[in-house]
């Protein structure tokens, strides 16, 4: 039997509400403390208690920690998903199951370990009867630890962190871990999976994106948040409630901020817009359905040029969809949100460090550009545990943008109007309530207004103002975070991605290079409007694969509208089933659309395609593709 070291996945099937998350987190953290790159993802139902739930851990020595579609080791603690869990083990994999589940184990191609969890727990008299199920989860932690070699000391340190040093729960849980390990020593190991300590996580931390975003918002000087509960965004606002007192506590016990739970999302954004208008650094956080409800206010903020930050932790739509599954499906909607012409500033964090970073930058951009800034995170980043470098302190002072005090206004007042473009960049100057200068007040409205914020229905004034908004959006580019580029030697194709898919894309590129010799440069876009690096990248390749987790290829759609001259080169690789991105579908998607060509013949074809000539075989095949899209699309994959 080959030994497989530091390169496998573990999936644990339990019931939700059964307390397994402490156990699963403990496994994850212990492996992390062993210095091995690891990730953990919670695949949970939209329900409170009793339905199947899974936790999947990816261990990878090379740092590829995207979700793996195959399960190497499966722990089955839930009778309701037992059959399915067993079926999901790879041939040759390991299957650990609670032996009180009396269901047939009918696979010969895997290694099975029945675990006497119940009886082990019952042997410990210190565990109250009510808590046996809960503690039982720790037994499988111990068994797994023994089998694959998780350091028990690291488990102890994970528990100490989790229970914040309270000895009693630490002991009770650790006893169960030890008892499990103890038992496992009595059985024979027949699977190939082993862990060995490394030093690859040194100096890193682990956290989820929502908490990171909340913390960074606090460092970004947040003053006001209004929110309405919705999965997977709630924990962002709840983390604000948690950490604001700790990080912004004052000697006089007074608050420099307010977090308001609104009656719904319309009110949540309404309050945030009111606060942003009045000069507070204001935000709201929500997910898909909430964003749909914010549409009208988003348009108001755009047109009145009110700074406000809107976090959308994406879940899968349309409509209620799968509320506890991840997605990148709100991009085009956010881009075009609101009736009338508009275009949004969108930030696209790719990991928890960027959640942290954008938690700060978003306020600066919103105030600098005077417009709503949407941050599109997703459930995978927001709610799962990710490795990261420690969070740095902001490396620049707060940028409040063109905000006029009484004194500033006194200097320029002869030439000030709320919507007057003094600098040619489309961005006007603003004043805020409380400014006592007699010229400072103005009346904001979502209806037509002139440069001095006065009501008007004049066609030319309307037109000029809208053109200025376009100009402003164009100039906003310079405040956008630049894309991240991963280059390869001899890259022949380009790959574009964004958000939480980075890890999976990196892995897929690695595989494609090794397996079939496709070398690619990878550009991870971090914001709309696109910066010039995107232009440059697009010009450099003949085939550009645009990877995203949605059905319609939304980034591809937007790139086509912005870069029609490159449109013919784009290959959309879009796929979404609610689960975090894996290298598998990306690899397959790219292979499916990759065109190997001799330089000459192919460019002829491309020319014909661009010309739209009737006779060109390439062209008609492309037309056929477009037509067939409704039929086949990406559903073949996986």
């Amino acid at each position, binding site marked *: 039997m080959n030994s497989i070291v530091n390169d496998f996945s573990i999936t644990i099937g339990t019931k939700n509400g059964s307390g397994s998350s402490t156990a699963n987190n403990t496994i994850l953290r212990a492996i992390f403390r062993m210095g091995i790159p690891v990730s953990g993802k919670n695949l949970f139902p939209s329900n409170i208690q009793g339905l199947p739930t899974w936790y999947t851990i990816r261990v990878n020595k090379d740092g590829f920690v995207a979700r793996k579609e195959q399960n190497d080791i499966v722990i089955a603690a839930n009778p309701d998903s037992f059959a399915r869990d067993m079926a999901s083990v790879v041939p040759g994999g390991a299957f650990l199951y609670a032996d009180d589940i009396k269901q047939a184990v009918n696979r010969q191609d895997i290694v099975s370990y029945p675990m006497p969890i119940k009886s082990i727990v019952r042997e410990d008299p210190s565990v109250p009867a009510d808590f046996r199920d809960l503690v039982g989860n720790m037994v499988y932690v111990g068994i797994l630890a023994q089998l694959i070699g998780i350091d028990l000391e690291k488990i102890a340190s994970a528990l100490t962190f989790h229970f914040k040093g309270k000895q009693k729960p630490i002991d009770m849980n650790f006893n169960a871990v030890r008892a499990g390990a103890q038992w496992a020593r009595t059985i024979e190991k027949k699977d190939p999976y082993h862990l060995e300590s490394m030093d690859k996580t040194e100096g890193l931390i682990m956290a989820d994106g929502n908490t990171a975003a909340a913390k960074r918002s606090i460092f970004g000087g947040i003053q006001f948040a209004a929110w309405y509960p919705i999965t997977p965004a709630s924990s962002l606002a709840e983390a604000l409630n948690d950490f604001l007192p700790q990080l912004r506590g004052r000697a006089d016990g007074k608050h420099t901020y307010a977090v308001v739970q609104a009656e719904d999302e319309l009110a949540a954004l309404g309050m945030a817009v009111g606060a942003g208008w009045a000069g507070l650094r204001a935000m709201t956080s929500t997910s898909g359905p909430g964003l749909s409800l914010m549409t009208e206010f988003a348009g108001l903020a755009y047109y009145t040029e009110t700074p406000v930050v809107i976090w959308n932790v994406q879940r899968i739509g349309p409509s209620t969809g799968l509320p506890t599954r991840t997605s990148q499906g709100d991009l085009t909607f956010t881009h075009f949100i609101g009736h009338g012409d508009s275009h949004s500033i969108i930030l696209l964090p790719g990991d928890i460090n960027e959640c942290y970073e954008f938690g700060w930058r978003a306020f600066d951009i919103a105030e600098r550009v005077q417009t709503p800034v949407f941050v599109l995170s997703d459930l995978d980043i927001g709610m799962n545990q990710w490795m990261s470098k420690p969070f740095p302190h902001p490396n620049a002072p707060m940028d409040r943008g063109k905000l006029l005090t009484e004194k500033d206004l006194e200097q320029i007042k002869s030439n000030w109007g709320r919507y007057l473009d003094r600098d040619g960049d489309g961005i006007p100057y603003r004043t*805020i309530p409380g400014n006592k200068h007699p010229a400072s007040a103005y009346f904001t409205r979502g209806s037509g207004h002139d440069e001095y914020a006065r009501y008007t229905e004049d066609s030319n004034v309307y037109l000029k103002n809208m053109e200025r908004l376009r100009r402003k959006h164009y100039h906003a580019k310079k405040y956008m975070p630049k894309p991240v580029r991963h280059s390869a030697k001899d890259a022949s194709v380009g790959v574009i991605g964004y958000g939480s898919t980075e890890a999976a894309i990196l892995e897929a590129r690695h595989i494609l290079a090794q397996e079939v010799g496709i070398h690619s440069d990878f550009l991870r876009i971090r914001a709309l409007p696109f910066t010039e690096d995107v232009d440059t990248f697009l010009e450099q390749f003949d085939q550009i694969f645009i990877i995203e987790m949605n059905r319609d290829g939304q980034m591809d759609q937007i790139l086509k509208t912005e870069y029609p001259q490159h449109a013919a080169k784009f290959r959309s690789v879009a796929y979404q089933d609610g689960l975090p991105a894996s290298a598998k579908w990306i690899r397959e998607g790219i292979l499916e659309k990759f065109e190997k060509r001799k330089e000459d013949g192919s460019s002829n074809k491309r020319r014909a395609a661009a010309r739209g000539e009737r006779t060109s075989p390439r062209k008609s095949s492309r037309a056929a593709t477009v037509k067939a899209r409704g039929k086949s699309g990406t559903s073949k994959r996986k």
Partner: protein
Amino acid sequence: MTETLPMAGASAPVNLAGLTKNDYRGAPSTLCQGCGHNSISNQIISALFEMNVAPEDVMKFSGIGCSSKSPTYFLNRTFGFNSLHGRMPSIATGALFANAHMKGIGVSGDGDTASIGMGQFKHVMRRNANLVYIIENNGVYGLTKGQFSATAEKGLHLKKQGENPYMPVDICLEALVSNATFVARSFAGNPKQVKELLKASLAHEGIAVLDIISPCVTFNNQENAFHSYAWGKDHEEPLHEISYIAPRNEIILEREMEEGEIREVALHDGSFVVLKNLEKGYDPANRFEALRIMEEAQRNNWLITGLIYVDTSKPTLTTVYNLVEGPLNQLTEADLRPAYSMMDKVNALMF
């Protein structure tokens, strides 16, 4: 604001804030001649002037409608936000956090508040934001040309709309059951009472609801202009465009109403509202009494006017949030960004 203000006469009286009444005015009104909303704007100007409030210490808010346009017509020197239909409360709630020392004045219509805005209206009551919430109530949608609002009485008949089949919303009763801390009603045609109630509401800390009946001279009438005059009888079909608005004067009570008095007031369309002033000795601190008289009034089809309920014991929203002394929107980076050293604390919180 470069909007020119009406000229202040050389000898105009100056109040304790050092301002003349003109300093409280806004742009000229574009509402219909005789619209009750204009008279309310005037009383807002007077009340603030007489109370010596500095215009800079106020923020004004509105939704969408003829009524919601009116903040343009007072307080040019005050920041204001003409927001979305039915959403004034949330904008005001957020904005008022910026400076707990400033007072909000919100103007809304009955459609804006009781139709589309019902949810936000009810929830801002619960929160007790420091806002004078004025509803210029005419029972119709003025700006969209005369459809029923949610305060239109059941059975009301309007041209093009037919008969209203639904029960009306009683704004004061709604405010009361949502625990508003100040609830009053008046009639635009009774400017003196409007002004007195405005002053009381401005002095109140917390949410103050002022439901002011403000007849729409143009649309809340049975027949349109063509019908009520010389040739009316011969012309029975509705005109599909209400394009002509006969000049009408605002309805103004000739004489102040006494306490406890009941008076019928004819509207432009010939229908009546029945106003009833609160009794002498009525105790507005008694919530039960308030419910009782509102119920009685509903049964009798009276519109109770006066201060119906007040509770000065509840903290305002910003008080509940225990904010720092100075305005929140004047804080600087030093106040808002945790120190460098805090970073370690943050990272330590992580695994």
